[in-house]
């Protein structure tokens, strides 16, 4: 077991330092790049916080949908192949719900401010 503080606590500390202490000192193109860097750290923090839970739920849905076991990557590859072959489509029970749940979990990490995501979140599943 690795020691503490956790990666989540560490990335958050770095992002907070850059945001509060460094941002006021930087301007121009470097300020733009600093903002991108802070966004990356925030994204990584969200992923570290949420990935375990969302991957577990995704694997569970994929197992039920595909009737097979595997890692989240293997199962996604299998689902992609079945859709490509036409064996699974939007008429397949559970597929649309699975893709929606998976995509919403991704947006929660990648772009929680994306307008389409906020609209769908408001719809509440």
């Amino acid at each position, binding site marked *: 077991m690795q020691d503490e503080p956790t990666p989540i606590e560490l990335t958050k500390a770095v992002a907070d330092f850059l945001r509060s202490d460094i941002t006021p000192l930087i301007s121009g193109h470097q300020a733009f*790049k600093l903002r*991108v*860097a802070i*966004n*990356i750290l925030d*994204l990584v923090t969200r992923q570290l916080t949420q990935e375990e839970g969302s991957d577990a739920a995704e694997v569970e849905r994929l197992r039920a949908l595909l009737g097979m076991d595997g890692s989240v*990557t293997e199962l*996604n*590859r299998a*689902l*992609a*192949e079945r*859709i*490509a072959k*036409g064996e699974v*489509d*939007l008429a397949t029970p559970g597929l*649309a719900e699975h*893709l*929606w749940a*998976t*995509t*919403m979990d*991704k*947006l929660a990490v*990648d*772009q929680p401010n*994306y*307008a*389409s*995501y906020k*609209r*769908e979140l408001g*719809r509440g*599943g």
Partner: protein
Amino acid sequence: MIEAELSRSVARWYPGASGVTGAAKLSGGASQETWRFDIVHPDGAIGAILRRSPKGYGAAPTRAAGLAAEAQLMQLAFEAGLPSPRVMHVLTPEDDLGTGFIMQRVEGETIARKILRDEEYAAARPLLARQIGGVLAGLHRLPKDKLPELRSRSATQEIAEFERDYRSLNWPKPVFELALRWLRDHDPGPSAETTLVHGDFRNGNLIIGADGVRAVLDWELAHLGDPMEDLGWVCVNSWRFGEIDKPVGGFGTREELFAGYEAAGRNVDPARVKFWEVMGTLRWGIMCGGMMQRFREGPDHSMERAMIGRRASETEIDLLRLLAPRGS
């Protein structure tokens, strides 16, 4: 310094010009740069833009029309009375500036978020969707016998090309697979009419003023194909910049776009437009994947590129909203 080469160039082809000032790079990747500068002239400064591939970057990527073709298309559009900058000079080897062209600078805004939010454009915004319809109708009517040589792509060829691009990324995405199936199932077949297609007509590639569209930029992806492609692309959610209920670039409705297009004497096929909107959404998603790949493999190991890679999921939610909408 680029000003020396530019000064020698303008002195040769612009009567009375004595040099240039204020050269500043606006944007630039490895293969294409845009510079602004002013031509010094006894009658007053003349605002100009240089668009070029620097020396050593002659070869265009396969999808690009090439800078010479871009210059020819912009000039044709200008002559047809469409909002387009006047092309002043096509670079020759004597210019020692690489390949490309110099055009008259059009003042206005290209940053989509400013156009959608700033007070200055408040009066123009409600007019833009319809105006864009008229501009697209004009572009699609440019005489084919005057066009430069351009690649020609049908919907079927485009689906195959995007599928190849996507598979080469080795990036299994069930939502993209679903979109590819949908596109194959809804392939509208050859267009009744093949016209010039701008290929990247969207909010961000237009110069907008308080009076509306002043210029159409970035003809890099121009080709021959289904005119409905441009109508679909301008509606892709990625170019609405948050104004998701206004499909046409965040400005207005499809109905206004179609009305502007039809008022200019051309017909709209809404089913084809929808097909190209789905295609365009997937296209941007695959482009995000391309950014991820280039970030990983270098040489452009930039944070910006990495983050664009993570924007593919935006196109996944937009594809689901188009193909498998929930409730209402």
